[in-house]
């Protein structure tokens, strides 16, 4: 009996198994473009089922598929902790943990009870390592959820909490990728000088690239410009002015209110930064370059 026949007997839905080019391999040709169907990626195949199935049912089918084809069912059963902490091949993870993301919480390990309480009764996996915790779950609203955790831990007296988040598992992006991204986001944030906050990998791309890039390439572009930037980097007043201006979305009036400076004083400082670095940080593109160079100083220890 084929896989489709076996499953059809159990589920009472018609179904077909296709290869990734859409060619039917077995079962009934139910088609691949119907919103009312369930599609499950199984290894190099796609199973199209004429009906809506729950995620649990999909997981069972996936498990059954692996056993059925005597593929490495052990991969499916690998404990999450093993996956997150070891060098597990991506191929064995593709198609599993769909839609789940990893949050990495860099905090003292004493926080474990609080984190367990937060997710009590929820389908959430919590894995501990030396610097913090991985939380694997479907993340609806990362910022709110992560901020709540930070606030909660602060209420309990834990400060300097960094939370990183990877993307949701989809296609060839696996839970392992998400975990690595979540943790690296925390480390990048720490190296950038943050001691608290939420950092999604989407917002850390540039810093990741800087961190990984060849110092000689950076030298090539910054050569001759170090002194001006270094002066600004070391001037607390100028750096604070730039940071507040960025926080106020380059709104001069709002930033001068926040800093309690006369608008002209703020503009004078912005002009001073321009004279030293050549960048007018009132303009988005130049502000972005300025922020990038300051990040280079932080990440590369220039």
């Amino acid at each position, binding site marked *: 009996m084929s896989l489709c026949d076996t499953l059809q007997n159990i589920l009472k839905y018609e179904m077909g198994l296709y290869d990734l080019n859409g060619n039917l391999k077995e079962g009934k040709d139910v088609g691949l473009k119907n919103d009312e169907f369930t599609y499950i990626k199984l290894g190099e195949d796609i199973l199209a089922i004429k009906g809506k199935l729950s995620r649990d049912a999909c997981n069972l089918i996936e498990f059954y598929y692996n056993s059925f084809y005597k593929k490495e069912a052990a991969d499916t059963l690998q404990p999450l902790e093993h996956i997150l902490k070891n060098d597990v091949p991506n191929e064995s993870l593709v198609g599993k943990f769909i839609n789940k993301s990893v949050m990495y919480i860099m905090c003292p390990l004493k926080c474990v009870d*609080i984190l367990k309480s937060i997710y009590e009764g929820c389908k959430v996996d919590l894995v501990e390592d030396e610097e913090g915790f991985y939380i694997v779950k479907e993340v*609806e609203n990362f*910022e*709110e959820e992560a901020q*709540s955790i930070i606030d909660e831990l*602060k209420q*309990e007296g834990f400060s300097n909490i960094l939370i990183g988040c990877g993307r949701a598992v989809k296609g060839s992006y696996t839970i392992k990728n998400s975990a690595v991204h979540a943790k690296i986001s925390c480390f990048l944030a720490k190296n950038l000088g943050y001691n608290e906050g939420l950092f999604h990998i989407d917002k850390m791309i540039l810093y990741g690239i800087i961190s990984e890039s060849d110092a000689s390439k950076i030298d090539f572009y910054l050569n001759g410009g170090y002194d001006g930037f270094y002066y600004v980097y070391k001037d607390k007043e100028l750096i604070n002015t730039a940071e507040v201006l960025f926080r106020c979305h380059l709104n001069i009036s709002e930033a001068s209110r926040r800093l*309690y400076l006369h608008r002209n004083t703020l503009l004078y400082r912005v002009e001073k930064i321009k004279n030293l670095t050549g960048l007018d940080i009132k303009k988005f593109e130049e502000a972005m370059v300025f922020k990038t160079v300051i990040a280079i100083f932080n990440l590369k220890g220039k």
Partner: protein
Amino acid sequence: MAKVVLKNVYKIYPGNVVAVKDVNLEIEDKEFVVLVGPSGCGKSTTLRMIAGLEEISSGELYIGDKLMNDVPPKDRDIAMVFQNYALYPHMTVYENMAFGLKLRKVPKDIIDKKVREAARILDIEHLLDRKPKALSGGQRQRVALGRAIVREPKVFLMDEPLSNLDAKLRVQMRTEISKLHKRLNTTFIYVTHDQTEAMTMGTKIVVMKDGVIQQVAPPQEIYEHPANIFVAGFIGSPQMNFIDAKIVKEGDYLYVVFGKVKLLIPEDKAKIIEQKGYVGKDVVFGIRPENIDDSTDFLNAHSNSIIEAKVEVVEHMGAETYLYVVCEGKNITARVEPTSRAKVDDVIRLAIDMNKMHIFDKETELAVC
């Protein structure tokens, strides 16, 4: 008793960066104290030291009569409300509010009682079964406050809790928090950079700059008797006018003189200025915009202190009008009646209520009177 006392408190970060310098502050039980100042003035650091989230580099912190320097935050009997008002998306309103107590292993029946009581106070009883995503912005704020209320702390600490809200909701929540303080009758310590929030909410305001307390006083006192030029300029909108001037004595009278303008100083203030030895000295003359007017009645009432000025900008605000004028090369802002007929480029007469004037030392910037 939830009196909070800071004695000679310093916060020094590595690299000898002094964030808070010799803070001495007594916050009485049930007071609503607002720490206010520009970004980077040390107000949040001070709050975080009270909360226990920052170590105190030197000095002493007492809550009640107990020295708290080395007491962990969870044992300080405080509750914090932060900027973001974040709630757990997967928990209902009830669960969100109950969570802090659950963590402390409080019995379920007591949790239930406290959550329902807090919900009643905040008027969110009907929302207890909802998830945060089904709440409006204002409702979410209330739930976040509820999370703090159920803990029944001795002291509430709030760090810019309204700064992420739009202007309308901010005004609404300002009132809600003030009402809450009255209902709970406990100590609130609130941090903001917004002087309007400070003036409207606090029973006592602490103005900070560069890590140093500039003045501690009730809102009206801060407004009427600022301790120095910084406080005078920071509190009040539009801000106080500051004019470099000289104190001149003619006969028995003292005058503030700048350019060709000569303004008679009222007797009581003149006495203080003379006693403090400022006759003949350069000073900074301060006057708030609302103490300058062009109405006939005001001109008649203050006929000894009239200036002529050229109008540069007229801003009609509805209930009042701001005139931006130039007199003797000095920029001056006046808040006048909306009926004022002043137009741009007019040269107009403005009277100054000298009973409301301020004189500051030019060097130290401290208030003389």
